[in-house]
């Protein structure tokens, strides 16, 4: 700031100063440090991971012998990998379906002003604000094999499940998968609600007034006014939701550790299992890399739709 003040008082200010003043130079100069940092801590390791996936590198090393696409084909022919890929897709799609419906309904009401809104909103965003690894511990306790409060409520309270042989939520493959889906939906829902609220808030009040004058109320308004205007931001929420769920490691790792019998492994946890626990760094990287084109394709598709929805 001192240097800047002195430059202000010296007419002319020197060539360096004037160059810095021009938009063409100042813009890139302000962006460059952030870009360089990101390239160093994301770009370089990303490139390195791609290199590792083509080698037979083992745990703790940064180099290996070139093996071409062997790691990718080996992973592809492994039944556990197939299961992990399938689970990643199922968990992501199922949880985001729940999230979209829930967020659409909840945000529609939460945008209103009502008494106690601050407190109810606090309760609703708790799952989003809580550190994931800690929140999942809460679920681990709720779904405990012996002392599950869900089983007590369903069994002793409502008589819907057996009290002597209650469902083992984390001990049976299908139930464990359902549990992971529920926890993912629970964790992402508040975030999606917030994005939906942002979308609703950005609809100008003139649109509301115009809709009222044109006689669009109730369902008609929802169908012809609110829904089309909401579509771009709903897609953004969905995009974030898909990326956050598909790339998540914590929920499965803390809740089931991929078990029982690897039935709830997802790509991220399976990559960790192979790359770190088994020490096959190269194959671990290859497994993780299967995720990237998947996410990139989803992103490009979504951004395309979002743009089109926005124009029309």
């Amino acid at each position, binding site marked *: 700031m001192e240097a800047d003040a002195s430059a202000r008082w010296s007419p002319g200010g020197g060539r360096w100063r004037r160059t810095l003043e021009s938009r063409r130079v100042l813009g890139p100069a302000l962006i460059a440090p952030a870009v360089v940092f990101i390239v160093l801590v994301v770009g370089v390791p990303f490139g390195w991971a791609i290199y590792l996936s083509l080698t037979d590198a083992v745990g703790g090393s*940064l180099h290996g012998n070139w093996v071409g696409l062997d790691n990718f084909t080996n992973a592809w022919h492994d039944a556990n990998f197939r299961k992990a890929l399938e689970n990643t897709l199922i968990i992501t799609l199922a949880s985001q379906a729940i999230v979209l419906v829930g967020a659409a309904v909840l945000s529609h009401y939460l945008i209103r002003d009502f008494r106690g809104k601050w407190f109810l909103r606090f309760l609703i965003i708790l799952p989003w604000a809580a550190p994931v690894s800690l929140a999942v511990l809460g679920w681990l306790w709720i779904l405990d094999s012996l002392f599950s409060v869900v089983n007590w409520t369903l069994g002793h309270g409502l008589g819907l499940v057996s009290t002597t042989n209650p469902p083992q939520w984390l001990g049976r493959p299908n139930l464990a998968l359902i549990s992971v889906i529920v926890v993912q939906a629970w964790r992402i829902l508040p975030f999606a609600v917030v994005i939906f609220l942002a979308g609703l808030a950005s609809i100008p009040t003139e649109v509301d007034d115009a809709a009222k004058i044109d006689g669009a109320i109730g369902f008609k308004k929802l169908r012809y006014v609110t829904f089309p205007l909401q579509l771009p931001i709903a897609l953004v929420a969905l995009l974030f939701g898909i990326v956050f769920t598909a790339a998540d490691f914590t929920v499965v790792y803390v809740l089931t550790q991929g078990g029982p019998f690897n039935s709830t492994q997802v790509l991220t946890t399976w990559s960790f299992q192979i790359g770190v626990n088994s020490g096959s760094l190269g194959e671990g990287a290859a497994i993780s890399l299967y995720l*990237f084109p998947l996410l990139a394709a989803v992103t490009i598709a979504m951004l395309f739709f979002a743009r089109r929805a926005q124009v029309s």
Partner: protein
Amino acid sequence: MSESFRAALHRYSTYLVVGPFAIVLAFPFFWMLVTMFKTNLDLYNTQNVPYVYNPLRWAFWRSATTEHVAYVFQQTDYPRWIFNTILVGIVVVAITLVFALPAGYALARLSGSWGQMAGIAIFLVYLVPPTLLFLPLAPLVARLGLEDSLASLMLIYPSFTIPFSTWLLMGFFKTIPQELEDASLVDGCSRIGSLVRIVFPISLPGILTVVIFAFSLCVNEFIYAFTFISTSSHRTISAGVPNELIRGDVFFWQSLMAATLIPSVVLALLYNTFLDRFIQGFTGGAFR
């Protein structure tokens, strides 16, 4: 339908929808609260009603205990983890602001048409899963002599806080009228001078929002915190609680739930306070 009935229906329908959602979403935290004060005899008796403090159910303060909560703070590294988490958070937020403030401003004002593309480019960074990055990062961190130190987290965390913060800040800066800056430029202020003296002070609420959310991203992070750090006293809460408070198959549920609930509630209070501003920055960044 009479008008007043309609109004009442409108009002109560809000509670009828929002209420159940709030109950379901907050239930795990309610359950943490109930669990953390339970005595062992009460907690591990499957015949007991879990929702109340047995056996003196109408005098819960005599059948509940705070000893498990005290245990977390007195007998474990938990206070240390909180300190470490805050330390990492503060350093990372500072680094983030140094990089993201100029970048966010430039994307909002100076960069022209490709500024919009940059918003998308920033998002692409999120597509690279941390589970992929940490495979080469782990040996790299070891080579740099940073393994098992908080410095490794301070170095790596900006990789996800900078893109996020740049995006939010871009949204906030766009809401500031260009005229204010033009006026200061006419008055003889340099562009950087007007940035420091005019734009940043006005954006302080937005910057504070970014600070809160970037900080919470650091608290949230699990995989780097879990793999880069191995000594208990060096851990942060997100990796310390699940790894160190569980000994083999033995779970100290009351202590675990206390350790889980406290940071969650603090963060949720912060989020709720800054939520409206977050929404403002979010829409500004993505849709203008």
